[in-house]
């Protein structure tokens, strides 16, 4: 395992050096306790301590609006727009989210737009030593510890940042900037201590084993819990739009003013919106808000388990933070646990 040490006094030099190579995106404070990934040019702009950003770093892999085709009266071309970039400061929950999306878009038929962008993004993770707030359930979703999916991974200590170098790309960055020192045994033992302490802080947030959540969902499709959500959900789609693993999209044409040329783009869409499952004839296959909320939960805790053998919830807590109707993921799961006790529990 390769580690490298960056003294805090050199952090700004590092970001400046990295920004000279490619765009650098990092969490930035937006006030009111909120953060967002934005382009930065120096370390002073970066919030090293932050709670999950309003939008997840998904937006760089699958932009909110993305041109997929351009056409004129005599040509049609499939296109991809991309920017080589490095995303600094990705928490472990969001690394897990990106891993989920990688599976979805790498599966056949492959999504080349996603894959081209993915290949142009360098990921630098950042460890959380403590919970961000009461909405997180990362321990339950096993995403509180780094579990791959990054080129470099940073753990912050008082005087220095310890980088885990995971890929050759990461190694190249460390070498090219010339700002790092080699880590020795003391650095590694300090990391081990840090992780040990972390294990005592992060505890399974709900009284259910991770592997049992899928079993719970096998028996709660017709639960009254969903009816209750029908009364509360405003169908604003916030939970979808902030989710690191939601990937539904709409496809829209935008003609230019000549009306003969233009672009086709895809845009994030939300299964919570009224029109999402409506067909042209008018039939709506998920008219009830409760059924739409159920669909969202099943897309996190049941359907992907069948297809990708993992949960598509990272425990980041964004859906709970963004919900005006106070629909909190941990509460909903707790209601389900209470209403549908598992036989072995």
């Amino acid at each position, binding site marked *: 395992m390769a580690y490298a040490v960056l003294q805090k006094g050199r952090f700004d030099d590092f970001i400046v050096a990295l920004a000279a190579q490619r765009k650098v995106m990092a969490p930035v404070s*937006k*006030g*009111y*306790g*909120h953060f*967002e990934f934005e382009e930065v040019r120096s370390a002073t702009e970066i919030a090293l301590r932050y709670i999950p950003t*309003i*939008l997840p770093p998904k*937006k760089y892999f699958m932009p*909110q*609006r993305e041109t997929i085709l351009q056409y004129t009266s005599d040509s049609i071309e499939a296109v991809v727009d991309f920017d080589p970039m490095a995303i600094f400061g990705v928490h472990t929950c969001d690394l897990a989210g990106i891993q989920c999306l990688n599976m979805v878009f790498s599966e056949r038929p492959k999504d080349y737009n996603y894959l081209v962008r993915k290949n142009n993004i360098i990921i630098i993770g950042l460890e959380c030593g403590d919970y961000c707030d009461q909405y997180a359930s990362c321990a339950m979703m096993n995403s509180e510890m780094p579990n791959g999916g990054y080129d470099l991974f940073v753990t912050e200590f008082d005087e220095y940042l310890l980088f885990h170098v995971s890929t050759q790309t990461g190694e190249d960055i460390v070498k090219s900037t010339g700002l790092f020192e080699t880590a020795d045994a003391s650095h590694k033992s300090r990391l081990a201590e840090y992780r040990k302490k972390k294990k005592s802080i992060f505890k399974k947030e709900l009284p259910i084993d991770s592997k049992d959540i899928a079993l719970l969902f096998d028996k709660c499709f017709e639960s009254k819990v969903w009816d209750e959500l029908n*009364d*509360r*959900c*405003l*169908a*604003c*789609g*916030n939970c979808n*739009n*902030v989710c690191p693993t939601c990937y539904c999209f709409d496809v829209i044409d*935008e*003609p230019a*003013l000549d*009306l003969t040329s233009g672009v086709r783009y895809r*845009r*994030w869409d*939300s299964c919570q*919106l*009224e*029109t999402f499952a409506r067909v042209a004839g008018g039939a709506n296959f998920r008219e009830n*808000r409760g059924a739409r909320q159920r669909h969202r939960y099943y897309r996190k805790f049941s359907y992907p388990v069948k297809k990708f053998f993992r949960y598509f919830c990272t425990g980041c807590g964004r859906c709970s933070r*963004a919900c*005006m*109707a*106070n629909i909190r993921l941990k509460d909903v799961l707790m209601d389900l646990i209470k209403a549908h006790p598992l036989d072995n529990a």
Partner: protein
Amino acid sequence: MARPKVAFFDFSCCEGCQLQIANFGEPLLDILKLIEVVEFREVMSEKYAGTLDVAIIEGSINTTHAIERIKGIRDRSKVLIAMGSCATIGGVNGIKNAFPLNDIAEYVYGGDSEYFESIQTMSVHQVVKVDYFVHGCPIYPPEFVAVLKAVLMAVPYDVPDYPVCVECKLNGNVCMYDRGVTCLGPVTRAGCNAWCIGNGNICYGCRGMVSNPNEKGSIDVIRRYGLSMEHIINKLEMYNKCRELNPHG
């Protein structure tokens, strides 16, 4: 191919939506390659009495004279676009409908009120058939262009039927409620790219409400944020009072 003849007409309004178009800047030149503007009081003195391909209406309808006039325009127009909140949902002029007509007339015209007729404010589609809606106070210029393209391509334009929150979130904005401010984004239909919130203001609901708001859920939210119903209703009625006459459109 002859460019379609387009005319702008104003009823009860501030003409601010037409000003948005006059202020378009460079894109206006491209638009004028596609259409022939034959009447537009705010920017030209010519009038046009013939058959129109497209009539663009700003303003709400609140006199019997206006009813006759809009019917006449409708009769000679192949396509009719309602532009701006006053035209599409009644807009601020609808506040009038919250009061007895006589009181309103007296308040405005005093002793001369008997000489002025007063009827309830209506949006354009509450009087004549409207083919296209460009909501907003004022209109959001990119949406006007999108609607115009749809008109020229002879396809419908579907106004988004989901709340402003969708576009607001996509833009990564901090929620106004997290800033401690009341915003009508959650019940107002999108299409403006959360223009106001993106510029630091709240949503005033100028585009009208989504067709199926969750009323019970909204009341829960209003309570949870410690807001009074009266406060919210006042905010909603600033643009949406005419909804009671006919909520669709």
